[in-house]
């Protein structure tokens, strides 16, 4: 589904991604771990098409198509979803209105009419129940005054509404308490199928106990320095990243 080939990306002439190779197939869950500043969020942003970052070499392919010329919204229409590490506030725009706009824009791109109101209501009801979100919450301004945990849960609610092909969750676990973490993870698991894929970016083993990865990759200094199965996450939890850094240096 997703194929990243020797991807290099920089911002202001500073190289952040230095040759990433990653293949994610439908039905898989990949975890990306790594110390702060290693380039995890940058990788997520580059996949999503953020123009601030310049791809200097390599490519990102979705279903065999190079995404190079696709604007962020076009990538979204193709099924890429990013749960942001730091979701932004949009004052005065309710969660419902935002979702309504997002869904209808994607439908428009596919040549479909706006989703009928009753269908939209049904979808909102179903997905807010899945994530145990109070309906009142949906009338609030997007992310404005939300707690860290509320923001993250709202990201996953949006993911549930949009049903993406490839979801990238960037530190979705940070800010969530244990109960919220379980609800969110449960939501992600319920949405998983053989046709979609998830990339989970995290520091902690904690989330990966709930969303069990098929593969774990360690990013360091803009490169994937180690890949393995879910046991690699345990190893990292125990030993930290230093041993890998040393391994790298050698």
């Amino acid at each position, binding site marked *: 589904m997703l194929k990243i080939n020797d991807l290099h990306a920089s911002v202001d002439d500073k190289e952040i991604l230095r040759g990433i190779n990653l293949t994610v197939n439908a039905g898989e869950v990949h975890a990306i771990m790594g110390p702060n500043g290693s380039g995890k969020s940058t990788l997520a942003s580059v996949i999503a098409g953020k123009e*601030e970052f310049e791809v200097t070499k390599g490519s990102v392919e979705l279903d065999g198509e190079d995404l190079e010329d696709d604007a962020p*919204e076009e990538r*979204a229409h193709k099924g890429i979803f990013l749960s942001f590490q730091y979701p932004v506030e949009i004052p*005065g725009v309710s969660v419902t209105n*935002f979702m309504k706009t997002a869904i209808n*824009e994607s439908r428009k791109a596919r040549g479909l009419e706006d989703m009928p109101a009753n269908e939209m209501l049904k979808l909102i009801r179903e997905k807010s129940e899945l994530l145990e979100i109070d309906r009142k919450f949906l009338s609030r301004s997007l992310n404005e005054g939300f707690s860290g945990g509320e923001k993250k849960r709202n990201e996953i609610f949006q993911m549930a509404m*949009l049903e993406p092909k490839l979801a990238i969750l960037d530190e979705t676990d940070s800010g969530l308490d244990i109960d919220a973490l379980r609800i969110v993870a449960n939501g992600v698991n319920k949405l998983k199928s053989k046709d979609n894929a998830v990339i989970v970016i995290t520091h902690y083993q904690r989330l990966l106990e709930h969303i069990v990865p098929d593969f774990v990759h360690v990013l360091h200094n803009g490169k994937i320095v180690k890949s393995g199965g879910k046991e690699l996450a345990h190893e990292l939890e125990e030993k930290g990243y230093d041993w890998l850094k040393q391994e790298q240096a050698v």
Partner: protein
Amino acid sequence: MAYTEEELKKELETKEYEYGFYTDLKSDTLPKGLNEDIVVAISKKKNEPQWMTDWRIDAFRAWQEMEEPEWANVHYEKPDFQAISYYSAPKKADPNKTLNDVDPELLEMYRKLGISVDEQKKLQNVAVDIVVDSVSVATTFQKTLAEKGIIFMPISEAIQKHPDLVKKYMGTIVPKKDNFYAALNSAVFTDGSFCYIPKGVRCPMELSTYFRINEGGTGQFERTLVVADKGSYVSYLEGCTAPSRDENQLHAAVVELIALDDAEIKYSTVQNWYPGNKEGKGGVYNFVTKRGLCENNAKISWTQVETGSAVTWKYPSCILKGDNSIGEFYSIAVTNNYQQADTGTKMVHLGKNTRSTIISKGISAGKSQNSYRGLVQINSRAENARNFSQCDSLLMGNECGAHTFPYIEVKNKTAQIEHEATTSKIGEDQIFYCNQRGIETEKAIALIVNGFSKEVLNKLPMEFAVEAQKLLEISLEGSVG
């Protein structure tokens, strides 16, 4: 606000406007230029009584002595008042014109606003082949109003049919000599609306000038007078979201509102006159004087969405004369390209326990300049007066300007005044966030702007609000690279 399914449904539907009336003036055009003879000629053409003619002459003489104001934060070439024709017959449908002759860009805009083909034809003086519903609708509408004793008609007609009411109130709130443009309007006003709501009557529908402006093109020197008698209520809609390409460069309207004891007037405006092209050529100069008077326990709310005109100069104001009276001003002013707007309000507190609220949202894009200018004045006898003002500015890009000029004059120690101001910029992160959810940049900006303006949009009658939202979107098109 709890978000119910009903509300969501409402959000998803659009409605037509409420109805207005037509004026059918048959006349030719007067020669260009302005002198006392022209003023008399205008009055004659309209078959006005002598007192009205005298009133106009008095205003004209005062105007001649006045100077064009310069204090507003706008820069433009002063109009040549002798190069304007002050009376022209409404344009008639040209039998040879079809929609194919109309600027496709304008038609595209109409389409986006969801304006029907018939309405498009009317706007462009293309003959309408089907009898438009609104004629019959307007008739039924007039009947309902008549049953309640509500008077709603062109001011020219009111001068003939209700001279006592017009004489009693016209010029009492905005005196003929109030300011340069008000004096000019008083001398040469061609038409406008008159509305009277009798004691204790709640006007059952929104009153609107929508159709009339489209038809008559009388927008240039409009004069509106709304009188809400004791304990009555009226909601009045002015303007039209459809972009008008009036060739008249200068617009100088006067609006007077009178809310007698316990009455309430809600006055909503959507102004979308031609703003000029992307290079700042052309466009309407809009110099408006709007003022309302509140007697005891009365309330006046001004809500405005200003997206058009090259230069706007407009301060809908409230004189809170009566005790416990309330004045409100909710405004969205959008400027793009080379537009300039200097707009705001005056809240003059005279009575005890008077309250006023000011919410101003300025949105600037392109190379435009957007100023808020407001005065809150608490007079010495106004015990326990309260004001809350909030002025928010939203900037797009680095070449536009937002300015706030809040003036506060307090002569009574019991006054409570709160002023808040914010300036923000649409951030790249906000746009990327929307893009990532499949929302393209222009739509994202519209969404952010609508969110920013929500408190004011919420004050508009539902059907107007939907249109106003679309209008904001269209006004800001092309404002990002």
